[in-house]
């Protein structure tokens, strides 16, 4: 088939409605209309979005699609519904001048690179993210999670699971694996979870590299400092990406999985009765609660034929993990249901292909340990309210769902 110039069915902009666990119905309508549908990107260019599982995986695995030019995942139109435009315009990064070395590092963002250039930099950091390495981190993660449970009890009985539990678990693990000493934790959170300029981030990274030069450890920074094939601009580029990459995605997943369980008591009961089910259930948390509505768009380097669709060279193609994760063509009947007994491996919650999440094995351990400890520690845990139950503006300009506050009561009211 060819792509109709005018999509006869629906809007061509990304829908701003929908929530993590109940995405916009427009995504399902798009998926029914075709494996690829036209999409108006926020920067004004036109392209396609892959809505079905097989098409999405095919694009993400195909080297004929380039990460260049760099295009952010599209957000909803800035002139959206009343009241939304202002909050949607909050940038992820504060504007500001960036020095020449920082600009050179920014050019080397792994998410802008293809082929050998990408492989060289990605391989410089794969060592710390293997299944074996993630398992070796389990005891540390378990101890740290126990500390966060103790902190929750102290703060309770009503807490915000995102701010008081999920975020510190994610940020502390990030620091531990990358090799950011604990005394920099607050600064790391201020720069990479909250808002800062690119220059502030590079200044932090450079000072950290100085500090760590004489104190090697079992961490990413040590590996990078000892790698003779990398220059300083490359090392700083990798660290900027890695520090920002887990910015709040693991915390988002812990918070969203909690909301999914607390709003689906029969699913919660399964995991309370059979805690060993939690390991595979993490995949269902990732499938049903995927964060990215669209990924960074790829550009076809040549004419490509996928799933019967002809994609001309130069076409910008994004992928919707949220849509693909609910494709009945792949997941069978009731893909909309949250079902912790489902075999959800192969979901696009960590992306897919060579740019897929490098930290996914560590993330799996974090999410599993966080939810396990939460369920074990608080048998009467109950949801009070969660912002993510109603549509929230995307964190402009990236089309991702936000965790929002997740208010829970730890113990039954006296």
């Amino acid at each position, binding site marked *: 088939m060819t792509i109709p110039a005018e999509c006869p069915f629906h809007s061509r902009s990304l829908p701003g409605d929908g929530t993590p666990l109940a995405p916009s119905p427009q995504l399902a309508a798009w998926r029914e209309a075709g494996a690829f549908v036209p999409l108006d990107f926020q920067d004004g260019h036109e392209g396609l979005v892959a809505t079905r599982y097989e098409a999405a995986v095919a694009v993400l695995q195909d080297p004929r699609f380039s990460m260049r030019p760099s295009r952010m995942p599209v957000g909803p139109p800035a002139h959206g519904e009343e009241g939304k435009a202002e909050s949607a315009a909050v940038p992820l990064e504060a504007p500001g001048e960036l020095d020449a070395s920082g600009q050179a590092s920014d050019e080397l963002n792994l998410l802008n690179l293809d082929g050998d250039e990408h492989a060289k930099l*990605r391989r410089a950091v*794969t060592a710390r*993210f*293997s*299944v074996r390495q993630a398992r070796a981190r389990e005891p540390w993660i378990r101890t740290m999670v126990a500390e966060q449970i103790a902190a929750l009890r102290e703060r309770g009985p009503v807490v915000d699971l995102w701010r008081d539990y999920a975020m510190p678990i994610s940020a502390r693990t990030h620091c531990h694996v990358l090799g950011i000493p604990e005394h920099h934790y607050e600064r790391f959170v201020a720069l990479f979870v909250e808002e800062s300029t690119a220059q502030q981030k590079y200044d932090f990274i450079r000072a950290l590299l100085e500090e760590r030069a004489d104190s090697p450890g079992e961490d990413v920074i040590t590996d990078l400092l000892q790698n003779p094939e990398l220059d300083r601009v490359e090392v700083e580029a990798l660290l900027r990406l890695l520090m920002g990459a887990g910015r709040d995605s693991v915390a988002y997943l812990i918070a969203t999985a909690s909301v999914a369980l607390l709003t689906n008591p029969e699913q919660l009961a399964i995991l309370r009765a059979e805690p060993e089910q939690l390991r595979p259930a993490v995949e269902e948390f990732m499938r049903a609660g995927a964060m990215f509505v669209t990924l960074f768009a790829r550009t076809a380097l040549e004419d490509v034929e996928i799933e019967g669709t002809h994609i001309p060279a130069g076409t910008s193609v994004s992928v919707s993990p949220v849509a693909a994760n609910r494709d009945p063509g792949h997941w069978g009947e009731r893909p909309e249901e949250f079902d912790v007994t489902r075999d959800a491996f192969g979901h696009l919650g960590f992306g897919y*292909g*060579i740019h897929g999440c490098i930290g996914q*094995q560590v993330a799996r351990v974090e999410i599993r340990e966080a939810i396990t400890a939460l369920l074990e520690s608080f048998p009467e845990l109950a949801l009070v309210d969660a912002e993510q139950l109603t549509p929230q503006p995307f964190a402009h300009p990236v089309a991702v769902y936000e965790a929002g506050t997740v208010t829970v009561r730890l113990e039954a009211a006296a």
Partner: protein
Amino acid sequence: MSILVQTDACVGAGQCALVAPDVFDQDDNGIVLLLEPDPEGADLAAATRAVRLCPARAIALSTA
């Protein structure tokens, strides 16, 4: 059935070592390591699943 691995293509996502730990591991650099080139029974089923899940198409089944 034999397993073929292409270490050049591997991106260290670790899906294979996760779902078929008796067939695949990762070396010190995170790159795929083949433990059992001719898996049988449950290991073959797990390896087949790993082939399907590999995001970089770095592993394959060969009937040769």
